[in-house]
């Protein structure tokens, strides 16, 4: 019992930190610009594929630096020539724009790299088990992933709380109008913030690419969960995103570890009826089976009962 709890906790934290790595950029963008970047997972995927291309030419480590830079540049261009233009049509138009962008990124990646997974390998220097608990090995690369996530969290906190640009970002969170009046070039700040935000997604991509599968559907796989994280955490709250990432990571791993079903809870349903066959589906489903849809349930519940999210500062 303790073994499964311990392992599940560890797995949950590892998965949660990967989620946070992606959610951090999304949160930064939303908190500054009020834009929920639907295409965020797309940039994450771009990061993974750029990382793959660079790593097979010059190695993993240069990729970790160059790929996010490239993606950040693309992001800045998208903001400058696309998002800024639709900004005046309001948030719905912005959301639709980034929604369209997910299609385009997805298709462009498929066009260039095809739909099959590419052979993106863990760097040699990290390809060994870091430690073993209860006979389960934990690869060094996963520990590296964890380290990077925590580091990014701390750096972002520092930047936001301690630096000038961070103060501008924070000010924009509560008084969007004031920042412009104070003479900051809001346009340039927006462009930069969007670039940095998607570059963070790309970092996640470069790291997750070898650990998971680098394939053209990786964006679609993680995208929806990402929104769950930022909405549950509270749109625009970095701390909230951090907590929500962990929460969702743990929720999923513990749910998977459980084999309980309604049938176990109440004994197998003996009541006969026309609905019996339909109900039997629900009745016999285990918690583990529904684990990956639990986050969506959580999302709906949070939005009903605590629309600001766990740590949000304003209603969505």
């Amino acid at each position, binding site marked *: 019992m303790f073994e499964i709890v311990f392992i599940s906790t560890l797995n949950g934290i590892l998965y949660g930190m990967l989620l946070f790595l992606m959610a951090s950029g999304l949160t930064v963008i939303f908190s500054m610009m009020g834009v929920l970047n639907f295409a965020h997972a797309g940039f994450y995927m771009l990061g993974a594929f750029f990382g793959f291309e660079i790593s097979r030419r010059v190695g993993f480590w240069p990729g970790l630096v160059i790929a996010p830079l490239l993606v950040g540049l693309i992001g800045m261009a998208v903001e400058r020539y696309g998002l800024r233009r639709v900004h005046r049509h309001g948030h719905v138009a912005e959301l639709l724009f980034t929604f369209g962008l997910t299609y385009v990124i997805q298709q462009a990646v498929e066009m260039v790299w095809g739909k099959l997974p590419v052979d993106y390998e863990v760097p040699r220097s990290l390809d060994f088990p870091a430690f073993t608990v209860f006979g389960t090995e934990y690869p060094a690369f996963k520990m590296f992933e964890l380290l990077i996530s925590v580091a990014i969290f701390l750096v972002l906190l520092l930047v936001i709380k301690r630096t000038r640009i961070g103060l501008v970002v924070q000010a924009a969170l509560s008084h969007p109008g004031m920042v412009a009046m104070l003479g900051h070039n809001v346009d340039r700040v927006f462009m930069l913030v969007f670039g940095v935000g998607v570059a963070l997604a790309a970092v996640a991509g470069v790291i997750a690419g070898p650990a998971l599968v680098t394939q053209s559907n990786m964006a679609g796989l993680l995208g929806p969960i990402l929104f769950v994280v930022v909405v549950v955490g509270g749109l625009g709250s970095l701390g909230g995103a951090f907590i929500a990432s962990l929460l969702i990571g743990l929720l999923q791993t513990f749910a998977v570890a459980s084999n309980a079903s309604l049938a176990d809870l109440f004994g197998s349903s003996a009541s006969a009826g026309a609905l019996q066959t339909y109900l039997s589906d629900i009745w016999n489903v285990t918690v583990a089976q529904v684990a990956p849809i639990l986050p969506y*349930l959580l999302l709906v519940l949070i939005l009903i009962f605590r629309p600001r999210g766990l740590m949000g500062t304003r209603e969505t």
Partner: protein
Amino acid sequence: MSRASDAPAAPVPDAGRGSFLAAYGIWIALAIVIAALPHIFSSGLALSMMSVMGTMIVFALSYNMLLGQTGLLSFGHAVFFGLGGFFAVHLMNALSGGEAPMPLIAFPLVGALAGLVFGIVVGAVATRRAGTAFAMITLGIGELVASSALILRSFFGGEEGISTDRTDLIQPFGLTFGPQIEVYYLIGAWCFVSMAAMYALTRTPFGRICNAVRENPERARFIGYNTQTVRFIAFSLSGLFAGIAGALAAINFEIMNSAQLGAAESGSVILMTYIGGIGNFAGPVIGAILVTYLQFTLSDITDVWQLYFGLLFIAVVMFAPNGIAGLLTLQEPLIRAGNLGRVSLYYPLAVVPALVALAGFSLMVEMTYRLSVGGSEMSFLYVPLNARAPLPWLAAIVLLGGGGWLFLRGARKVGQVYGDAVQEGLRR
């Protein structure tokens, strides 16, 4: 005291005092078109495509009740489409053998009911919020339902879905609904009725209040309206019509599948509605027809058609936020001023270079694709070429660059001419 009797400078709208033809002419014309189409396009493919178009028109219009009329961006509208279809299919199977006195033509009502009921249930949750939160709730609910559909196999039929036989019901008037043409007319009739109903809905007090809530929800509360109730009713009714569309799809294909309530279907209706134009009742109709047509045909022309599709959508969001219908209504002041003919002579200045640039762009895309799938020989617009040779690339760059440059100049000129003409029309 009453100054209302003074003659106003412009006549205010009058209560349907226009002639019968002016009021209903367009609907009569529409009915004639629906009836006549199969005699013009009679191939099996054209029939099934037009059947899909009719279905999608209803679906897109129902979506626009949310996005266009009430300002609600939903990412989970296919839930109601799918559920409407599933309930219709299940009832068709339950009544197969023709024991119950329910002909096929009545089955869209089943979809309507299912759509309405689930619209009410989901709406009660989702419409508590508006804006981004509403969008996220619908996204979450869409994912929830789509994922659950794979778990609840007895109802949703797992991967295979649930299939049915539409001919296995009572058949009044000898209508078997075996041939596609009969199904087309069934869909056409329901499409016509649904269109009329949804149009009528925009011209009711509720329809106008939806617009008011879209424009300024805060103000709507201060003129006595509960915005949540408005959103809720709009959501439920839009579920109803989505359910009709789902049932029509079920009748057309005789199979429902859990993919039809998933994110792809929800995304597809957003694309249709927005490309067509959300600001105009005809917009989603245009969008549904165009997008369905493209979906049917583009895949025969290019393998990367979904890329073009995404780009088209982005282009509309950026440059024509009112969609195709919006571009058409831009011509209205010109028509009124009687100078459309003159102005439209200038349109090729923008359109031709745009097409040239598009050709250059898609040449690049197609060559990139050719290289990435391995190979180099291809043909583009019937011209055979080698994707590894520098010449086609040079040509593509010239086409794209030159076309783009000319387009920018041409578009500016067209904009000027258009603006002048509108001004001129106003002065008259």
